[in-house]
Structures are given as structure tokens and as C-alpha cells.
């Protein structure tokens, strides 16, 4: 099973540079997620790997073979589209069997393989139906079936779950993970949803503005985001960001003062909602604020706390809710503080607290 390599890949559309010198290595058998906001180039990368577009510079390899200029049908890949791209004029069975038909496999042998794949995806009762007669989730499964039946070297997923409702999304996410465990093929998954990224990926590649911003295992990206952008992208609710000044090696957040090993100047401090403890007792080391809004989610609640340090309300995750308008003190866990410099990159660490 070959892995995939992007080597200094660039793509220019007319005047604009969509991808800039992107190099990514995807080991065999891994499920790698390309994550990022709309327009970051992740779908373009996928399409170029599929052969639907060609890079303007750089090489793409599947295994050790360069595939630039090779038509999609010769690349031994399969793709699941966001819009499913099922052939409306063919039944489910014909859709799934189409790749086999293109390979020249006669129909009696196709039937068997199609039936096998259909059984795997729970589609057997629907084989004679047409795509328009199916629900979104069923259509997505047919799209996956069409990909699976080819038994390709590389599977490509282009935001396959965006058109589904939350419950279905969760369900099919699990199925995709299961598929990966069972088949073990190399899979490349594009999404802007960080939940999908975190749960499915062996490795996440975060892209922004046509460049790779960070790559690593999910937990690595979660706990050590390389830039403020990545920090804000991964993790929901998003990380709280506070801009403040470093003065003589110290920063002050409301009543909280601590030493930091960062040069003087502007710095953005980040802390995740789940890494703040909250108390209603006046605390000398905390950031004072008032609860503006509460989102009660059942198992936990998100409190939106208005503070002086931060223009937006800070988000805090708690297991027991508190009423709105309560005055509270926020205590960020020092070991989970992130610092980002003016250029967005992480730097330094928190030191000791300085007491007044």
C-alpha cells in the first residue's frame, strides 16, 4: 500500500496563488486529515491528488511513482465527494458496480462484488433503487460503496459529511473510522470540521492561505498549537485569546500577574475553556468577571464571562452550571497557557505567579 507525497506543490489560478510550496508526506495506511477554513486550498490539494486538476509546480507521488499528468483512472484512487456525485440515471447496484464495469469485469462477476460491498454498508435492500429515492445518509453510503468496490490504494474524502445532519454525521464518522481499521488503506480526508479532524485522524495537516501551518497527531496539535490560528481552529468552543503586553518579563491579566520567559512587547495569551477553573469566591490570583450568558448542554455548560482583560466574553467549560450575572473569578491553569507573538507563533512559557 503506497503512501502519498506532495513535494513542493503549488497551484496558481489565473492571478492568484491558491497553494504555495506545500510539502506533505503521508505514510502508508494512515488516515490523514487536511483541515482548515474555506479557501485554504485543502480541496485543491485533494483534487490534484485525484487527477482532476494539475499542479502548476511541484510533484505528487503515489507510492514512489510520480503521478503528475496521469489521468484519474490510472491512479488507483477512489473519491467520496461532498455532493456524493452519484449517477442519477443508475440504480444503487449500477452505481457501485460502475467502476468494475469500466474495468471490463463482466456483469455476473460484478454482481458478487457489489453484493459484498452493499452488505458491508447495509445497503442490500436498496440495490434496485435510484439515488433520488434515498436519504442523505444512504446516498453517502452508496458513494462510499462505489469507492470501496475499487479496492484502491488511496481513498480520498472531500468533506463527505458536510451535507448531513449532526446525528448522521456522528454515525457515519464512526463507520469511516471502522472502515479504515478494517481495510487499512491510505486515506486522505478533507474537512473544515474540527471534530471530524480530531476523531478520525492519525495525523492532521492544518492549512491556511495555501500553506501548511502545522502537521501532527491530533493531541499534539491540540496541546501545542504552533500558531494562534491553529489554536483557534482546533478545539470547540474555541480557545480564549487575550492580547496583552509583556513588561519586564511579566504579564498582567486583571489581578493575575506572572513571570514569563518571553521578550517584552505585545503577546496574545490563549487558554482553552476546559482549562479554566472558576470560583465565586474572591481570589487574588484570578481574573474577575461577570457571567453574561450560559449555554446549558446537559452534561456540561459553557459560561460566557465578561471580563476587563478581553473584549469578547471568555468561554469557560464547567460541569455544574452557575446562574447568569454572578460575579466570578477565573483561574487559568498555568501549565495550559499558550503564548503567541506578534507573528502568531508560539513562544515561551508561563513562570511563577507574582503576588501583590
Amino acid at each position, binding site marked *: 500500500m503506497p503512501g502519498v507525497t506532495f513535494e513542493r506543490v503549488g497551484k496558481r489560478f489565473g492571478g492568484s496563488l491558491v497553494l504555495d510550496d506545500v510539502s506533505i508526506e503521508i505514510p502508508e495506511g494512515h488516515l490523514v486529515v487536511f483541515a482548515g477554513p474555506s479557501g485554504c486550498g485543502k480541496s485543491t490539494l485533494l483534487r490534484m491528488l485525484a487527477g482532476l486538476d494539475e499542479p502548476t509546480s511541484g510533484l505528487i507521488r503515489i507510492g514512489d511513482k510520480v503521478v503528475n499528468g496521469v489521468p*484519474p*483512472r490510472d491512479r488507483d484512487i477512489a473519491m467520496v*465527494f461532498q455532493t456524493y*456525485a452519484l449517477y442519477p440515471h443508475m440504480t444503487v447496484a449500477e452505481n457501485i458496480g460502475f467502476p468494475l464495469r469500466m*474495468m471490463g469485469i463482466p456483469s455476473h462477476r460484478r454482481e458478487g462484488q457489489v453484493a459484498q460491498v452493499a452488505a458491508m454498508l447495509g445497503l442490500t435492500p436498496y440495490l434496485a433503487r435510484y439515488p433520488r429515492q434515498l436519504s442523505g445518509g444512504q446516498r453517502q453510503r452508496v458513494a462510499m460503496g462505489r469507492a470501496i468496490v475499487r479496492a484502491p490504494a488511496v481513498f480520498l474524502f472531500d468533506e463527505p459529511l458536510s451535507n448531513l445532519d449532526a446525528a448522521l454525521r456522528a454515525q457515519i464518522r464512526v463507520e469511516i473510522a471502522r472502515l479504515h481499521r478494517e481495510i487499512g488503506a491510505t486515506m486522505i480526508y478533507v474537512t473544515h470540521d474540527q471534530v471530524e479532524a480530531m476523531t478520525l485522524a492519525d495525523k492532521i495537516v492544518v492549512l491556511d492561505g495555501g500553506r501548511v501551518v502545522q502537521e501532527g497527531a491530533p493531541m499534539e496539535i491540540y496541546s501545542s498549537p504552533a500558531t494562534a490560528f491553529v489554536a483557534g481552529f482546533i478545539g470547540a468552543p474555541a480557545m480564549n485569546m487575550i492580547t496583552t503586553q509583556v513588561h519586564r518579563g511579566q504579564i498582567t491579566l486583571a489581578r493575575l500577574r506572572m513571570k514569563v520567559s518571553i521578550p517584552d512587547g505585545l503577546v496574545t495569551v490563549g487558554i482553552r475553556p476546559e482549562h479554566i477553573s472558576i470560583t465565586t469566591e474572591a481570589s487574588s490570583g484570578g481574573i474577575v468577571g461577570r457571567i453574561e450568558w450560559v449555554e446549558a448542554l446537559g452534561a456540561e455548560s459553557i459560561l460566557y464571562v465578561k471580563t476587563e482583560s478581553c473584549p469578547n466574553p471568555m468561554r469557560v467549560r464547567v460541569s455544574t452550571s452557575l446562574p447568569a450575572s454572578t460575579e466570578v473569578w477565573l483561574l487559568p491553569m498555568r501549565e495550559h497557557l499558550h503564548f503567541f507573538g506578534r507573528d502568531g507563533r508560539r513562544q515561551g512559557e508561563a513562570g511563577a505567579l507574582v503576588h501583590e
Partner: protein
Amino acid sequence: MTAIGTFLRWAAIALLATFALFPIYWMLVIAMTPTGFSRSLDGIWPTVFTTENFTRIFAERPMTRWILNSVIVAGLTSALSLLVGTSCGYALSRIRFRGAGALMLLLLVTQMMPATSIIVPLYILFARVGLLDTMQGMVIGHVSLVLPLAIWMSKGFFDRIPSDLDGAARIDGCTRLSAWWYVALPLAAPGLAAIFIYGFVTSWHDFLFAHTLVHTPSRWTAANGIVSFRGEYFTLHEMQMAAALVFAAPVIVIFVLMQRWIVEGALTGSVR
């Protein structure tokens, strides 16, 4: 809406409808009444009907032959235009190439220019290569009328097919050509049928080429045949109208049966 208002509205509609339908009614009257009725002053509501005009046009004139010629020419024109036009329409729809805009402009212009401008040189050209007075010549002439519209309309229909489907087909093992054949064409099929009908009707209705390019009566299409009932001194109105009806009726009937579908197709393929 007040009662008076509604009444006036329906009165106006009735007036317009009379305007729209009367000529057809009159055609029917002339064709289905004995000779001379329509020219008498006996009012406009006939009481005596006959089918002799219809039988006469088939017996005394080569009406069957003419209709057959129309069918053959229209069928060939439409089939040829469709065959050639759909590949061009697909290319215009899917491929970004230099000159695409210019080509579409050209197609538009050819639809808008008067046929009299090209009939003159076409006649001379045909005379030189011996295509005058032939079925082939007629078909070629009609293709000039039909092909641009066929290309334009098929592009419109292919535009409606999501391009993801082409991508999926190419990943599934198709070449661009087989993606067109196995996926795009079947999906555009209803549109292609509409194009065929438009092409057929355009060729069927044409008068200019029919009148100019063919002079042997047995090779006329019906469009030209029906004019032949006019003589130097008198016109055989009844037979003429019967022939005109036989010529025009199929299209009218098809239209009535498929009205909604055709109008939709017209607006899709229209110049916009």
C-alpha cells in the same frame, strides 16, 4: 377583483383568443367545406362538410411524396445536427478554452442573421457542385439553420449537470470521452430530445431553402408544395388549405400535447 373587472378581463381574453384562433378555424373551414363555400357570402359557420379536399390533395398531387420529403429532410437535419452539436456543446460547457466566448458569439450571430443573406451564395455554391435539387443539398442548407441552436441548447443542458459527476466518472475509470458517453449524455437525454424536436420543427417549417434549392416538384418538401396550389389565374383554395393543414397540423398537435415541456426547453436554450 370586482365582478365587472373579472368580466372585462375575460372579455378581453376572449377577444384575444378569437384573434389567436380564428385563422386556424378559418383554415379548417376552408379545408373541410365544399369548393366555394369560403368564398360565398354565406357567413362563417359552415353546415356542410366534406373530406374531398383531403383526398384530392393526396390523389391529384404528390402530397404524400412532399410530406415524405419533409420528414426525411427534417429527420436527417435534426439527427445530424444533434450528433455533431452535442459534442460541441459539451466542450463549450466543460472545457475552458480560448475562443470559447468567440464561438458562442458566432453561434448567436448566425441565429440572428436573415437566411436571405446566405441563400444567395449557397445557391451559387450548390450550383457549382451539383447539389441543387437534391435531398442532400436541402439537408445541408437546413443544418445551417439548426446546428447553431443545437450547440447552444446542448451546452445549456450540459451546464445543468454537476461537474462532480464527470470527476466521479473519470475516477471510476472513464476517459473524458467515456465520461461524456456514459454519464453526461444519458443525463442530458431529455434535453437532447427537445433539441431534436426543435431541429425537426425548424426544418419542417422552413420555406426559403425549400423554395429555392429544389425545383423538381417530386422533390419538394411540403412547405413548398402547399404554395403550388396558387396558379396564375386562380387558386385552389380548398386544396391549398387542406394541404396547409396536413402540413402544419402535426407540429401543432405535438405542441399542444407537450406544451409545458417545450416552453421550458425554449426558455433554457434561449438567448440569455
